[in-house]
């Protein structure tokens, strides 16, 4: 029986000629990631067990992105703990305020992850790097601690669902709409314990930013990882960023999938996921009149340059509704700089948006856009759980940057094609 892309990467990192779904393996890690919320717990575990060294200081990344720039004294203490650990072990990829970006935008941008690698991160959206043809998955802090100490972890080899993409996205439709549509089709546990392997001729019409967004939210369908094949677009993205050899793995023709889900990209509409689960996906034409109080454009899901570009295109020469607070957060310093150079920042500010240094802040109700009870937000983030962004009766509608920008102007959830 053939292997899926994921299974091939896992076999290579376990030093085995082949692996089968369900098999327990020990795999070597190319990168171990943590942030300012999960690393302190990992550091505590690491130190409690008396480890005195890390497996490879160049293969650990710590990104201070969640409650930063420090939202309060406790958050500052957590960052201090990470900083002290990073200095003690001379961690190469420690990103503090001023250099940091939202981790899952930052690591691909810096070339710290690439095709064929095996990556764990103490953050559930670590599955983002599957866009580059890597196996990457979210774990907890104890797994991070063990990974930092040994450079290995255990996995159960997953089965896979094939997501066959055909056609091409329509204008004002993006990767975000595709993944919300998919989660709507299969549900928040539709891919539980499994890989989502994105295939088909439609893949080549998706930009790297689209793929990163789709892979990012694979966890919201319960998936262990989401992964794309490596093509010219992947290679062009890695060129100039990745200075080590990388490997493109392709699924065998007889690889086994538990099911195949087909999506014709031509038919995907701008899509909005209603509170309080990402699976509550509705095409924008079915949304109706929903007045909003806040818009968030940013995050590891949608804080990349293409996201900023489409938001700027829509907001240019227009004004944010006076009853809406629109907060735009480019996900990395480089994206922020690009936004300045391309004039997007001027557009955002002229439209009445607040712009911010990179942070995960509002996505998880940390800071920089926490909501009062009863308020409604259109967010380009990834989760709309109860209380995720503030008060427990506040509501989050997940959408693309295009829908978010159009909604900011309209003061209600709006179709970007109808402005």
């Amino acid at each position, binding site marked *: 029986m053939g292997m899926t892309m994921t299974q091939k990467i896992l076999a290579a990192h376990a030093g085995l000629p082949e692996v089968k779904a369900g098999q*327990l393996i020990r795999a070597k890690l190319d990168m171990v990631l943590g942030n300012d*919320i*999960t690393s*302190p*717990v990992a550091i505590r*575990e*690491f130190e*409690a*067990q*008396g480890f005195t060294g890390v497996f490879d200081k160049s293969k650990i990344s710590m990104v201070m992105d*969640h*409650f930063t720039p420090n*939202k*309060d004294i*406790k*958050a500052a*203490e*957590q960052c201090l703990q990470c900083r002290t650990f990073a200095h003690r072990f001379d961690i190469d990829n420690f990103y503090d305020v001023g250099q940091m970006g939202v981790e899952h935008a930052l690591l691909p941008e810096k070339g710290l992850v690439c095709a064929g690698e095996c990556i764990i*991160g*103490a*953050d*559930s959206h*670590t599955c983002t790097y599957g866009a580059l043809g890597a196996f990457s998955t*979210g*774990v*907890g*802090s*104890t*797994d991070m*601690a*063990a990974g930092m*100490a*040994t450079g290995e972890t*255990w996995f159960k080899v997953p089965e896979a669902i094939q997501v066959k993409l055909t056609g091409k996205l329509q204008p004002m439709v993006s990767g975000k709409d595709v993944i919300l549509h998919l989660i709507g089709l299969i549900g*928040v*546990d539709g891919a*539980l*314990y499994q890989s989502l392997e994105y295939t088909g001729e439609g893949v080549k019409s998706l930009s790297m930013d689209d793929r990163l967004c789709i892979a990012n939210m694979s966890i919201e369908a*319960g998936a*262990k990882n989401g992964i794309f094949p490596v093509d010219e677009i992947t290679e062009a993205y890695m060129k100039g960023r990745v200075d080590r050899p990388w490997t493109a793995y392709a699924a065998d023709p007889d690889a086994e999938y538990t099911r195949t889900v087909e999506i014709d990209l031509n038919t995907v509409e701008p899509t909005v996921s209603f509170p309080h*689960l990402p699976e509550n996906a509705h095409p924008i034409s079915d949304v109706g009149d929903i007045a909003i109080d806040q818009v968030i454009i940013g995050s590891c899901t949608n804080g990349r340059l293409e996201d900023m570009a489409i938001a700027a295109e829509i907001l240019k020469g227009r004004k944010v509704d006076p009853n809406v607070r629109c907060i735009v957060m480019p996900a990395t310093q480089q994206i922020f700089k690009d936004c300045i150079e391309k004039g997007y920042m001027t557009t955002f500010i002229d439209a009445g948006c607040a712009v911010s240094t990179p942070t995960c802040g509002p996505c*998880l*109700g*940390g800071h920089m856009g*926490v909501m009062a009870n009863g308020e409604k937000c259109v967010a380009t983030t990834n*989760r709309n*759980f*109860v*209380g*995720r962004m503030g008060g*427990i009766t506040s509501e989050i509608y997940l959408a693309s940057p295009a829908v978010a920008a159009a909604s900011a102007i309209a003061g209600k959830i709006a179709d970007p094609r109808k402005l």
Partner: protein
Amino acid sequence: MNAKGFVHKYGDNVDTDVIIPARYLNIADKKELATHCMEDIDTEFVKVVKGGDVMVGGFNFGCGSSREHAPMVIKESGISCVIAKTFARIFYRNAINIGLAILECPEASEKIEAGDEVAIDFDTGVITNVTKNETYQANPFPEFIKEIIQAGGLMASIKERQGG
């Protein structure tokens, strides 16, 4: 290894944001964190939970964020075991790694009601509903995972392996 206690019951897709809201993730102290366990869906939980009690959920328990604080606060609250139809995979890993007992058992999840008294035998995977006088069979842990739990969690199992 056994557990016995009264049941706190929840539905499907109990996410880590309601188990421990992110606004408290700047708190390092486990005991203080645990005072907020489940508060966004059940403000009574921390007031009524007793050591040994059992938490029961439906499908996809623990979905969402990878925060290990979620199984940590459940354990810290005194819960001896979480039973669900299925668990989200990161939560599953985290629970094992920190030594919180969890069992997948769709039948138990269906039939057990809030307030029932249940007894669990982890060696056999048998869950006894003392209140209803019923028993349910849970999937036992794979051998590999039993080893981690027996060693006292992932870090201890690694230490054991490195020492051996």
